[in-house]
């Protein structure tokens, strides 16, 4: 193979992989970053934030109010991939979620800031911004 051609292909592939990794938060409809999903609701003075876990978490980024009691609901639906193995470092939570169901996680009364959840291998994540 010609060296120049090879350099061009290599560069194109590097850029392609780069876009896959870094350029995903804006234009991927599944990521939910640009979608305005109603995933936060307040019932009886408790704020519920709902996250779907299957092949990643959605929405990836949600906004919620700080300083009120908050519970995180993580829904699984036939989830066997890494997103079922949930870790939330800031509250010391780690659990393998049931394959199908809802897991309610008490976040207490969060301060302003972000709470981040990851799958155990670290390649899926979500964060809830409290403000």
């Amino acid at each position, binding site marked *: *193979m010609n*060296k120049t051609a*090879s*350099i061009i*292909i*290599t560069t194109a*592939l*590097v850029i*392609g*992989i780069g876009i*896959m*990794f*870094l350029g*995903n938060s804006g234009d991927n409809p*599944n*990521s939910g970053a640009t979608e305005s999903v109603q995933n936060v609701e307040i019932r009886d003075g408790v704020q519920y934030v709902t996250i779907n876990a*299957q*092949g*990643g978490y959605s929405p*990836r980024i949600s906004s919620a109010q700080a300083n009120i009691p908050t519970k995180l609901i993580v829904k699984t*639906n*036939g*989830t*066997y*991939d*890494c*997103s*079922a*193995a949930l*870790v939330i*470092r800031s509250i010391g939570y*780690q659990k*393998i979620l049931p*394959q*199908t169901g809802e897991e309610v996680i008490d976040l207490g009364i969060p301060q302003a800031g972000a709470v*981040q959840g*990851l*799958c*155990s*291998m*670290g*390649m*899926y*994540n979500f964060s809830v911004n409290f403000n």
Partner: protein
Amino acid sequence: MNQKTYIFHVSGTHCPSCKIFIEDALNEQIGIKQASVNLKNETVSFETSLDESQHKLAEMLTEKIKRNGYSLSIEKKAKDRNDHAVIWQALPIGLGFLALFFLLQKSGILNLGIGGQITPVTSFVIGLIASVSSCLAIVGGLVLSLSAKISEDNVRDTKTFTLFHAGRLVSFAVLGGVLGAIGSAVGINFTLTAILGILASLVMLLLGLNLVGVFAKSKIALPSGLFNFFRKIEHKTFTPLVVGFATFFLPCGFTQSMQVSALSSGSFMSGFLIMFAFALGTLPMLALLSFGSASFAHGKYAPLFFKSAGIVVIGLGLFALFSGMAGLGIISPLFSI
């Protein structure tokens, strides 16, 4: 009969195991004794009672070892210019495979919801999916790097691979059975699996760089202790079994889910069957990786294969390393696929 001592230049040596292999191969030859490879000078010396000319000897002996990528010559070969051409071919091939792999992950086809009760059949299907999922980055990357390395150094690779896969199947089944029998008593520690994952990714990076030839080119040899370790891996019967066993604990969401299913299955037999079927499902892909390496490694395109595999392994290793560190909370997640 007069014994003569010859010294030849040998090309293709890059590791202590090559030394052992070449020495063994030459000593097998009738009429040749005390073959000894000097890795630093890339020479081999031996005593022979054969009456052939030097040229003839070099040719004859190259014939014996060229299948594994080594050759003997009287003159020191100009540093393989070929090497550069190969890396330029390997780079797009390796990156192409990486791009395909990540594209597959992003496409979402692998995120099928499988509902209902876990039976050995569903866990077999989940195993099939897992073997091409992001778990491939860690388990598959490790298998590919070890297999390519073993094929590069060792002739008895098929036996090693068979042992690895057998060890993996048996230990998944037995550990699954144990989980089923003792129920909820065992917590599978996330931090531990994350640390194992990081270790695996470091091994992949190291072997990947080695396969690409970074160490050989810059003449920076890896610490010999490490090489002795790999040599032990390659030459012992029980090591591939142990590595197969260890893959049970590597971080992989699918494996972890199946472990929980086995845990809650309630009996030794059902846990045993669930994990066995799961491991069986992952077998075709992993077997393809290891036995595929072996057949490429002995073929015409061996140098290209090793370098391409090295690039794939480095890419997967980096991915696994960053993910693992993010999982441990050391760095913030760089990406999400």
